């Protein structure tokens, strides 16, 4: 992928990610998150991970965002009115986040491999669904089944939690 496209999609992801946090209206936040995830999916595809990019769009931009928008609609959540802002807590939160960012950037700066470009591939990876599927059903069969049980438990838990108490 050309550097130009990389920086466009990286900027798209980061700017709309920031819009999620900065928007007062939860609906605008959810729609910004969709755009951010689409940019992230393009970044995944630039790394030759086509399957991960596709499930990113299907699961996040499709399923998870519809769930978020549905809950926002169901609870009828309005934009936050201008409540008293606790400036001390806000400055503390931004300070901790900035310290975290600086720490990660220092680690990346001292990481020798981070300066190298990506090695070339032997061939195109458009068949990576086959490779990931073979790995998933051979080497990672037990974790795969445990994940299935986890999703089942989550489904039962959601049904139990959202059931109205009988009076």
């Amino acid at each position: 992928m050309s550097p130009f496209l990389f920086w466009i999609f990286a900027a798209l992801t980061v700017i709309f990610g920031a819009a999620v946090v900065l928007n007062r209206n939860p609906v605008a936040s959810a729609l910004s998150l969709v755009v951010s995830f689409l940019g992230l999916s393009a970044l995944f595809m630039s790394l030759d991970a086509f399957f991960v990019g596709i499930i990113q769009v299907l699961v996040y931009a499709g399923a998870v965002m519809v769930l978020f928008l549905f809950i926002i609609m169901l609870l009828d959540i309005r934009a936050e009115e201008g409540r008293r802002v606790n400036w001390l807590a806000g400055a503390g939160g931004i300070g901790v986040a900035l310290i975290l960012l600086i720490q990660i950037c220092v680690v990346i700066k001292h990481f020798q491999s981070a300066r190298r470009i990506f090695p070339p591939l032997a061939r195109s990876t458009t068949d990576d669904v086959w490779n990931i599927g073979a790995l998933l059903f051979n080497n990672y069969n037990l974790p795969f089944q445990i994940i299935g049980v986890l999703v089942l438990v989550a489904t039962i838990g959601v049904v139990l939690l959202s059931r109205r108490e009988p009076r």
Partner: protein
Amino acid sequence: MITLGDYLVVSAVLFTIGFAGVMLRRNLIVILMSLELMLNAANLSLVAFSRFRVGVSGLPDYNTQVFVFFVITVAAAEVAVGLALLVALYRARQTTDVADITSLKF
């Protein structure tokens, strides 16, 4: 050319935005969305490392992409349970603001 470090920096910035969202916002729905941002930032660095570690077959390291698949699955289950908790909380208290939930405050 784009190096591994560029992807890692984008991932770090995205993670920090999500972290700041969890620290600063008081609306529970936006906090859940910020959690998703943090999980996806971790996924981005995982996929970058997967592409960086080309094996003897000349293909990316697919073990990492299987791990990303698991992360996405668990994140989807987490969102479903989190939103169900939010609905239960809204029924009990008619609020989604974390500043209004003080029952456990000492």
